[in-house]
């Protein structure tokens, strides 16, 4: 039984095929990258995994369980956490309350949720700002909060959607440190990213797609040197 | 069979007036994305203006239309500019602020009118209010026929305005995509003011047309606001053609309901249609066509 895999995953919006016959496997404990030029369907893949969009055809299996047709909240309970590309802080709650709301995913008791939330906040280095209202945070902190919230749901698989976008180089470096920390704690991560250095640095395996279709799957080195990938990003010579 | 045709025809005629109410509402909802819970009250104000002009100046309601419409346009513009637009900048827990503001405005309008005119029912009896013409075995109420005709004319003028004039196109552009419209140099603030005024003017027209065949009292606004919603949702938000179709459908449905089920349940017909559409056909009839 694989940890996570998709089989012939396809999503069509009317006549537009956004995701076309994608099949890939993710091993537990690894960081799997999903890259491709703008509009290639990366976030749509996440939305399919997450239950946000219904699948047109194909299957998603998580620890042997089929995810097709399950509602988003159920998929979260099964152990898949997710961040959004355009972050969605719960603006009128504090940082701590935001994360507690997630922590309630695994418990019904307020003290336990608070404990877990504080733990996660410390892990993500947001502990000092725990009483700040979420709407007052900088973009870098919002992204941290987004990750903290996903972590607090107690996932086994974490989907990170373009967490580095809009960050300064220093913030990006800090982000990479955090992601590695998460992986080292035993988490499996699928990361959608645009920024090549980040992806090449941290991923164990990469899938590159364009127009919803697979171009190549493999190790970072293999993918980086693949002419089709270079063409997709830079266009033909 | 005759009864059915008669009922159907009355429904269509009434539907023409309803369509005007719905058109005003759908424009406002399309452009500002707010639910105007004062719509019926605006119509009511126009009806009182028409009534006063009839009582004291003996002006025929159909001519008063030409006074009521601009007056309500102005009132609508003022409301949008001073009461609704400023709310856009306020960050409150309830996004329905604008809606609630219109509730307040509706209340104030109703009470001011009640203060001036009291709650007793008033009516306007023109020479043709109770005249009927007979054609094809069906009787048509003259006032309703004229009302339908004027309503149709106004609708055509509205379409011409929206399709052919610059302002009209700006209104449609803002309704479709406010940010894009802003980027194209359209003054969105001004357009919202204009649109609310236009919506109010259309409601005013409906009111003037309605006065000879209805009765008037301050609380008449509420039911019409609800009818406007039904029409708007039925036809599809922001769809002008939808509003026309919706208006006629509602008119016919109410007419059939009054005849075949019961007079008392007439208003419920609209509500039930409303719910059914909200649940099963959220895009409104618009979803079935490509309009």
């Amino acid at each position, binding site marked *: 039984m694989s940890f996570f895999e998709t089989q012939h995953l396809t999503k069509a919006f009317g006549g537009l095929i956004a995701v076309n016959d994608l099949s890939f496997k993710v091993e537990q404990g690894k960081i799997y990258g999903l890259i491709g030029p703008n509009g290639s369907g990366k976030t749509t893949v996440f939305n399919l995994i997450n239950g946000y969009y219904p699948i047109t055809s194909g299957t998603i299996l998580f620890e042997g369980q089929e995810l097709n047709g399950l509602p988003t909240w159920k998929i979260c309970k099964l152990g898949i956490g997710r961040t959004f590309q355009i972050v969605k802080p719960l603006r009128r709650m504090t940082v701590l309350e935001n994360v507690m709301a997630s922590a309630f995913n695994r418990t019904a008791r307020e003290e336990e949720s608070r404990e877990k939330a504080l733990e996660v906040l410390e892990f993500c280095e947001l502990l000092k700002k725990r009483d700040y209202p979420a709407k007052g945070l900088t973009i870098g902190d919002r992204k941290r909060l987004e990750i903290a919230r996903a972590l607090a749901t107690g996932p086994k698989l974490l989907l990170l959607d373009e967490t580095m976008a809009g960050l300064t180089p220093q913030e990006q470096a800090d982000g990479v440190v955090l992601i590695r920390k998460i992986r080292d704690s035993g988490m499996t991560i699928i990361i959608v990213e645009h920024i090549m250095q980040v992806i090449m640095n941290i991923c164990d395996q990469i899938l590159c797609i364009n127009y919803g279709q697979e171009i190549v799957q493999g190790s970072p080195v293999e993918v980086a040197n693949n002419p089709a990938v270079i063409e997709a990003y830079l266009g033909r010579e | 069979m005759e009864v059915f045709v008669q009922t159907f025809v009355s429904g269509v005629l009434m539907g023409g007036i309803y369509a005007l109410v719905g058109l005003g509402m759908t424009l406002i909802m399309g452009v500002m994305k707010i639910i105007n819970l004062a719509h019926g009250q605006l119509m009511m104000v126009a009806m009182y203006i028409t009534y006063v002009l009839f009582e004291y100046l003996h002006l025929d309601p159909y001519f008063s239309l030409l006074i009521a419409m601009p007056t309500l346009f102005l009132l609508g513009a003022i409301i949008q500019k001073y009461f609704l637009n400023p709310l856009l900048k306020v960050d409150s827990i309830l996004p329905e602020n604008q809606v609630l503001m219109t509730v307040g405005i509706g209340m104030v309008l109703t009470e001011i009118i009640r203060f001036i005119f009291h709650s007793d029912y008033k009516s306007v009896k023109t020479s043709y209010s109770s005249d009927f013409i007979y054609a094809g075995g069906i009787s048509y109420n003259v006032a309703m026929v004229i009302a339908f005709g004027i309503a149709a004319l106004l609708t055509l003028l509205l379409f011409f305005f929206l399709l052919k004039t610059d302002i009209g196109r700006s209104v449609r552009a803002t309704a479709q995509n406010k940010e894009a419209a802003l980027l194209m140099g359209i003054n969105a603030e001004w357009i919202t003011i204009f649109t609310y005024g236009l919506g109010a003017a259309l409601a005013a027209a409906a009111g003037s047309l309605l006065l000879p065949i209805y009765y008037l009292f301050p609380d008449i606004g509420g039911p019409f606001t609800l009818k406007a919603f039904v029409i708007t949702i039925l036809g599809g938000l922001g769809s002008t053609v939808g509003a026309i179709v919706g208006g006629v459908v509602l008119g016919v449905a109410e007419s059939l309901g009054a005849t075949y089920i019961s007079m008392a349940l007439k208003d419920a017909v609209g509500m039930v249609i409303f719910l059914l559409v*909200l649940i099963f056909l959220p895009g409104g009839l618009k979803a079935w066509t490509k309009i």
Partner: protein
Amino acid sequence: MKKMRWSALIPLLLLLVFPLVIQSDYYRHIFIIALMWVVIGSSWNLLAGYTGQVSFGHAIFFGTGAYTAGLCATKLGISAWWGMLLGGPVAVLVGLFIGWVCFRLRGPYFALATIAVGEIFRIVATVWRDLTDGMQGILIMQTFRSKIPYYYLALFLAALCVYAIHRVIKSKWGYCFVAIREDQDAAESMGISAFRYKSLSLAVSSFFTGLAGAFYMNYMAFIDPHVVFSLHYISIMAILVGIIGGVGTLWGPPVGAFVMVLLQETFRSSFFGLLPKWVSEGHVLVFGVLVIFVIRYMANGIVGDWSKIKRIWSKEKPEPVATIGS
């Protein structure tokens, strides 16, 4: 939280001794009605202010509770007081059904749907004469001559309601409700079933509103569809109580209830007889003006904008915005 508990005790104590100090039935009646609105407003606020589902149809639950109690007397031949036990649960059933139908609608569409359902209930109650006696309404014998038992019952209901909501807000449910309000999609991704929690919120909200309705039947001894299913006098009043007091706060609706009821009565009685008669005619007008003013300048209500109000009086510096902790 401790601080709030102590300062809440003072009004509670005042309310406890009120009817013993004030002998007039007229003023007792006003307070009873105000306490009833504490329940309705707080219930509405739980669904709208905390969970973000703005209902324009709370009259549905109030009327259901009232008619449950009334029908106990007219159709079941038992005392209307049984309605106090049944009114809440029946209202919950109605609420769950409405939620099942309407929660798929977001934002303003949900509000519109609640208006429609409210009107349908009102019309059906008016027309289904065999069941409800239509516009004749239901008339029962008032159990107590004195207002005092009703007063303490109302006070008990209000205190129970506010306390229950306080506990709910602090619990997992409360966090889920607010998460849904702030961002339903994010909440779903956090493992919160929006439908389930909206329904839970609606269940609590409709329960207490139904209870208030049953109380109303027993207290006023007369109801008709026009009053208890009224869009303006019940549904919109509930919204106003919430807004003027402060949406999304615990003490907002209680404050709002007393402000609204006292204000309404002040005007309706022409400032308790001190001003000429025509002032009474304007009481709804004053309401409308108040709504406009509050929405425009005090959108978070008296409690929500309390720091802002204090600031204007004392010219202090602004503080951070209140969050779930208030």
